[in-house]
């Protein structure tokens, strides 16, 4: 069993930055992005109430289902897409290995 997975952040120029995300710290993708100093504000700290950690999932399967809170928040975002997620609601689990996200601008 691996103790970390790799996730990728796609930059504007298409380049993908690889990040290592440990499995044993109960982290969310948002926390991994913040720890790696990506410009994710995550104002509310992970309660799915501010949508300042909005990402678009470019590649990834077996993502956790959206809670009502998250779905509702995304619904209200003018520039969300069908593959939008709040990165604070994506727990780092083995299934997320190879996940590719793009950080969405704040509305």
């Amino acid at each position, binding site marked *: 069993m691996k103790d970390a997975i790799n996730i990728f952040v796609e930059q504007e120029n298409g380049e993908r930055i690889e990040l290592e995300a440990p499995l044993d710290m109960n982290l969310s993708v948002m926390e991994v992005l913040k720890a790696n100093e990506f410009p994710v504000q995550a*104002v509310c700290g992970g309660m799915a109430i501010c949508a300042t950690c909005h990402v678009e999932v470019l590649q990834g399967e077996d993502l956790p289902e959206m809670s*009502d809170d998250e779905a509702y928040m995304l*619904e209200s975002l003018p520039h969300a897409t069908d593959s939008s997620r709040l990165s604070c609601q994506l727990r780092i689990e083995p299934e997320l290995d190879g996940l590719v996200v793009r950080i969405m601008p704040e509305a």
Partner: protein
Amino acid sequence: MEKVTTDICIVGGGPVGLFAVFEAGLLKMKCHVVDALPVVGGQLSEIYPKKPIYDIPGFPEILAGDLVKNLEKQIAPFHPTFTLGERVDGLEKLEDGSFILRTSAGSEIACKVVVIAGGLGSFEPRKPSIDKLEQYEDKGVVYMVRDPEQFRDKHVLIAGGGDSALDWTIYLAGICKEVTLVHRGSTFRGAPESAAKVLSMAEEGQIKLILKSNVTEVHGEDTLEAVTVMVDNANPYKVDVDYFIPLFGLVPKLGPIEDWGLTLDKNAIAVNTLDYSTNVRGIYAIGDINTYPGKLKLILCGFHEAALMAQSAYNIIYPDKKFVLKYTTVNGIQEI
């Protein structure tokens, strides 16, 4: 609308703002607390009152709502006063170094020290990124319905898919000449009754409903005259409107605090960790709203910051007295 004179005005009535009343009270400084929400407790009351918190020292587990109740009890001997449901908008520094704060409802608080314990900030409407949108603000673009009569017999276009978009569409349909609802999705996740009502109103022709669409452009000479709606990312067309109301929920922002001349760092107020003072003498920032190297957004850190702030504020409020640390175990609580 009221006029208050106090030693310390605390902007934000969350847990840290409330505990600041306690620390100030121990040093015989009177506090007035202002919060935009109608109740104290901030996020703890508004967002997660029933959630347990596990990292309050001495409480293995406590519900957020109970922590707020305990804090209210703890500060009661110091008789703080409150202005709730009003947002602090303006801050004026007087020549003698004291301050006057003005709220959205016109209340004025005169104080010697300002403590900003604003947490996430105030919740402001989320603005869609549309070119030149700001140019038409209050000239046809409004983000909040304050007085529905404003829209009587007008052509109104609402954008959004949440509860408030649904509710206002239903309500304004009875007042406006024409209401159009533009929604990005093809379904609504909001309250099922409201969603069903909107769909049936659209079928009956009482409103216009445009799904899978976005507003992409705004037009008008001086005031708003039309918007462009893009359907399915492909078919743009212009709709003549008097008002465009984007309703995309609320997002926490620093709000008017941004304009108070304080040094900011990534949406937070930069402070000196010696006493959590800002760059303006007499203004402190504690809790989630401040930032410094090593900052942790934890309630318990905010409590610590409140204690250090209070001893520094004491030197401003009582410049001739020497600060002496007193223990509650020795002195108890002296009502003020």
